[in-house]
């Protein structure tokens, strides 16, 4: 192997290494934490889901939809309480996650609506959720089914 070939091989390795680093950085810029699903009260076939998305990157990310193999349909909703105390539910088609910020899906605010469960949803189950972003990024997480009030999530 001559010197030039060694140098270019080295350069190639360096390039690959840098590319890997960049990919890694892009992946960890967007994370999802504390995903949980509220056990549905008896007689109710719809579950609510909550989680927090962190965007440590430099660009806003748009959450377009959430899917789960355990549910036929997942919608994104927001509870709004007006000044006179009236509450209303709004379906959201997309939700932006600003750069350097977090988006909280939490009780009384944004929440996932999980319809058409394929299996009975029981307390303690771990259910896989996939978050789909407008730039094509997919983020997978696992949500534990809990009874509301059985934890100190705020």
């Amino acid at each position, binding site marked *: 192997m001559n010197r030039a070939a060694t140098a270019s091989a080295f350069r190639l390795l360096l390039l690959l290494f840098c590319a890997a680093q960049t990919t890694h950085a892009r992946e960890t810029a967007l994370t999802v934490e504390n995903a949980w699903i*509220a056990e549905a*009260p*008896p*007689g*109710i076939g*719809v579950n*609510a889901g909550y989680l927090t998305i962190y965007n440590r990157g430099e660009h806003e990310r748009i959450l377009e939809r959430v899917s789960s193999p355990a549910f036929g349909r997942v919608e994104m*909703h927001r*509870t709004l*309480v007006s000044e006179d*105390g*009236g*509450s*209303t*539910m709004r379906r959201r088609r997309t939700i932006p996650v600003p750069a350097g910020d977090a988006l909280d899906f939490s*009780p*009384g605010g944004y*929440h996932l*609506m999980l*319809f058409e469960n394929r299996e009975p949803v029981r307390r303690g189950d771990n259910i896989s959720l996939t978050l789909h972003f407008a730039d094509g990024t997919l983020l997978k997480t696992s949500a534990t089914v809990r009874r*509301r*009030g059985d934890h100190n999530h705020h």
Partner: protein
Amino acid sequence: MFKPGTMKTASLILALMGLGMLTGLYTARYYQPEPESPDIEGLFWPDPKQLHDFSTIDHTGRGFGLDRLKGQWSFLFFGYTHCPDICPVTLSVMDRVQQELERRGVDNARTVFITVDPGRDTTEQLAQYVGYFNPDFIGLGGSEAQIRSLTRQIGVVSSRGEPSKEGEYLVDHSASLFLIDPRGRLISLFSAPHKANAIVSRFMAIRRFLGQQA
């Protein structure tokens, strides 16, 4: 030298002054000004609304009217069992409130959930729903007219959304909690977001204040 007339006037003035002092003393000792509205958020004072009779059906199938509210403190919450977020959130907060009140020795306060969706919320559905959150919770339903006999008095309005192709619909409704005192008066409103600690401490303050008024 004093003229008799001057003496008369002086005595009268002295007598009046004495009377004034006595009145002042009496006032200071026995007169307490009408208590002003205390600094308690959401309190309807000094004119809490006295509820009149209404006729709903509880989750056991018994009639539930004004007499069932008397003698106890009641937290009223209006919602529906298919409500995805705010209703279960509020009822689980109220479960914590009830536990904390019990711990503090309050045994005459309870939570009443009134459906604004009688089409889907049958007596059976209400029973299993409220019982899931707390076995002592009371669920109220009945016909649209029966429910209105209560909601109208509290000033709670609700409106049903358009059903989806799956036939599901959402209902907009009040997110507030309404406190009824043991005399059946609407005494306070608690606005969302609801926090158990805040509800407990405000309830204790209201109970203390009303105890002083009795």
